[in-house]
């Protein structure tokens, strides 16, 4: 059983879901999709967003159903220890790959926007350090971090909203449906790796202090995150849909807002805002790192610190070997889209099954205990009655 003090609150879950929902998607996905499906990327994104919200609903249902046990314990009860370990090994591998993609994109994003003369090794090292530190931490610390940073992220996003909203001609997103719906969704499906972020919520199952608003708050966070992503997609489409070839990495947010601001005399305010916003992506990277290490901890029972450090070293090594993020993205699109999609759907479904079964078992157990208790109580009551009646009889005599 997870201790009450170590659980995260509903408000913290809200911020975590919001950050998970938009971090990785705003970073690169709009650029990648715009290049492939042009203006129709908005439709593709909306479709995939609906699917993802369904997954979020399933994960939240699992969170609400879970009988205050860790997901691993429930999985062990259902499929046995060996099978549970295999499942968790797969989960950790999947989340590690998502972390790899995220860190790779953050690296590129920074190199495009801030430090163009730095080598990728220099970028990777502190990012891996951050992942190691957050991987070692607790869910509660991550929850608190996201909760503390949420207002800053929200303010930065609102400012960017205003800048982009004022400076972009939204009529440019039309005409829609040029590529055909089938082609749009097929191409969007290839970007499955950028979706399914909510499957990482397996790490919070059994660790949330639930209230009657938990599920609603989670869904609202997911919807806001999806709408935010769609808004940026709209902004990017309106700005660059006619000149897709101009798009480079990292231009989705800063490029748009800078273009919208268009005043060099005031300095690059947008860079400062995006620096505030990018913290959400770093928190997401930390959450992935934490989830990877948490899953790995169940498979390899060694100290969390050691696992986190090993995962960080491995991450750095892979990033060194795989220096081109474009190759990494191409790999994710060409070879990992189907497994990612399967994972995206399978994890929430599996989570629901596991928690539902665990809940039923818990209920049965409790019912049994209650039954025993009631029987015992009745027996005691009967005995007491007998004793009383006997006593009364005695007294009458």
């Amino acid at each position, binding site marked *: 059983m997870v201790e009450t003090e170590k659980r995260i609150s509903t*408000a*913290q879950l809200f911020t975590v879901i919001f950050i998970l929902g938009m971090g990785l998607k705003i970073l690169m996905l709009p650029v990648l999709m715009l290049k492939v499906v042009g203006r129709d990327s908005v439709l593709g994104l909306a479709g995939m967003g609906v699917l993802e919200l369904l997954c979020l609903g399933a994960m939240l249902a699992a969170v609400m159903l879970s009988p205050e046990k860790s997901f691993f314990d429930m999985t062990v009860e259902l499929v046995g220890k060996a099978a549970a370990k295999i499942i968790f090994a797969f989960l950790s591998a999947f989340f590690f790959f998502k972390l790899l993609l995220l860190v790779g994109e953050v690296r590129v994003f920074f190199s495009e926007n801030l430090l163009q003369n730095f080598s990728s090794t220099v970028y990777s090292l502190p990012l891996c*350090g951050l992942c190691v530190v957050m991987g070692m931490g607790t869910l509660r*610390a991550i929850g608190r*971090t996201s*909760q503390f940073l949420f207002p800053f992220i929200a303010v930065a996003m609102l400012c960017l909203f205003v800048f982009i909203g004022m400076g972009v001609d939204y009529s440019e997103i039309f005409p829609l449906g040029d590529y055909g719906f089938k082609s749009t969704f097929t191409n969007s499906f290839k970007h499955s790796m950028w979706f399914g972020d909510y499957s990482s919520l397996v790490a919070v199952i059994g660790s949330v202090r639930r209230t009657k608003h938990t599920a609603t708050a989670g869904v609202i966070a997911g919807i806001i995150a999806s709408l935010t992503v769609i808004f940026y997609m709209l902004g990017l489409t309106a700005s660059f849909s006619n000149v897709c070839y101009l798009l480079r990495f990292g231009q989705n947010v800063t490029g748009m807002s800078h273009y919208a601001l268009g005043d060099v*005399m005031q300095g*690059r305010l947008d860079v400062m805002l995006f620096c505030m916003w990018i913290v959400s992506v*770093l928190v997401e990277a*930390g959450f992935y790192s934490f989830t990877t290490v948490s899953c790995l901890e169940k498979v390899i029972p060694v100290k969390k610190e050691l696992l986190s450090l090993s995962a960080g070293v491995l991450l750095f090594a892979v990033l060194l070997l795989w220096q081109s993020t474009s190759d990494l993205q191409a790999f994710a699109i060409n070879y990992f889209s189907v497994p990612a999609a399967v994972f995206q759907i399978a994890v929430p479904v599996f989570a629901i099954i596991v928690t539902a079964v665990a809940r039923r078992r818990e209920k049965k157990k409790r019912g049994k205990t209650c039954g025993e208790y009631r029987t015992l109580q009745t027996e005691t009551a009967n005995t007491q009655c007998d004793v009383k009646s006997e006593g009364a009889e005695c007294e009458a005599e």
Partner: protein
Amino acid sequence: MSVFERKREYCECFDTFAKLANTLRRSTLNCKVFIAGHSERLKKLLCDSCVFGIFLRLFRTLKLMDRVKAITESFELPSTLVAREFGVGKKKAAMLFHPDMTDELILRSVLRACVAANKCSGYEELLREILAVSEAEISDDSKAAQKILSGDAVIFLDGASGCIVVNAKKWDKRAVMEPPTETVVRGPREGFVEDFKTNVTLIEKRLRTRKLAVEKLNIGREGNTAVAVLYVGGIAKKELVKDVISKIKALDIDAISDSHYLVPCLEGRPNSIFPQVGTAEKPDVVASKLLEGRVAVIVDGSPIALTVPFLLIENFHSGEDYYERASFATFLRVLRIIAISLAIFLPGLYVADLTYHYEVVPLKLLITVLNALKGIPLPPMWEILFILLLFEIIREASIRMPKSLGTAMSIVGALVLGDTAVKAGIISSPGVMIIALSSIALYTAPALVGTSSLLRVLFTLIGGLGGLYGLILGVTVLIFYLSSLNSMGAPCLAPFAPLIKNDLKDGIVRRQLLSLGTRPEALGSPNKRRLRW
């Protein structure tokens, strides 16, 4: 049995008795019990009332002298203590004290009162006589040496176990005055002093409630320093009090010279650069913290009280906030937060912008700064680090050097050194301005000066090496670290993370006092309501 044989037996018995008394250093009764249980021969002899009377008299005389001698000899230099023998009625008594730590006038009046007593059957009677002239209490023999070292005088009565401890402490102490680190324009000006009793009294004066508990402990093998743990029963969480006391008791140390010696015991992460224990020099501040459900620790010889749990936001609070209008207090708190943020991040941001991100700086400002930087041999990071080093040296020197030299040194440091360095083209004027602003801003939260100074250097290095990218990563790690930090079970980032709506009333914003109806939830006080209006 011949008279000679009996005498010989008496002598043997007496020797045994004396040896036992010397070894055990216990009361007559205890010795009797011990002997009765161990020596059949002595038992037989003690049955003879005549012999018993002789023995008892002999033993008592010996016991009194022996007790005094035992205590005196337990000191490395026995001449440190002074022993005075005197008669109380028909009984003999001895007073033992440390001449440098006791008040001669009190001792004289106590002696006079004792000698004037016509009859004395035991300590209770003697105590009645002494209480007329001084504060006194009956205590165990075992505590005698410790009491003497605390400045008390100890009176032993012949033939009775235990002793009387007379409060005759006399040492110089500072008058209660306004503390230099917590000066206020409005509000009480009383501050703690080095005297333990005065400090406890200052709090007791403010909290005249039977619920105020002052648990006294003695810490330190050699120092035996008095430590008081204060809390208000029913308001402070029981587990918290228990935890604080057990952590202090667990400290096995020679002596504690100041309350700060206890800080690492009370902190969950003593190696952290962030304080997890609050300090206060004013009794009104400590009293109000006790009423919030916190526990305070006062150490003899220290004018600084410790309070736990300590939240990060408390660094931005001042005692005066509660004596000002709510709106102005809020403004001051916001100002302090901005100031500390500037103090920590401004040098790093300046270095990052000038090294990597010129485009972030507005054009006109950039032109001005670049003109000022013309001809400066050092890159921005090294320049800022150099100015920081200069500032830290001047600060450290001005604190340590005699006051008469302080003003002169400030002029030399700030004007001559700074101005000359700028004119010589070693450092730039924007650099000096940035550090000056950062350094002034540092002192808006005095408790965080050390932490902020370290963070400032760290973020300057990060900004110089990694630009904004490094700064963002650094801030994220810092927030994550703070999120995982607790102070005696209370989250350091409360009431923001975790978000506690009720506590936000006295977070950055300070609502008017009448709306602060509940105690901070982060502290987990069992008694939540503190005000009804």
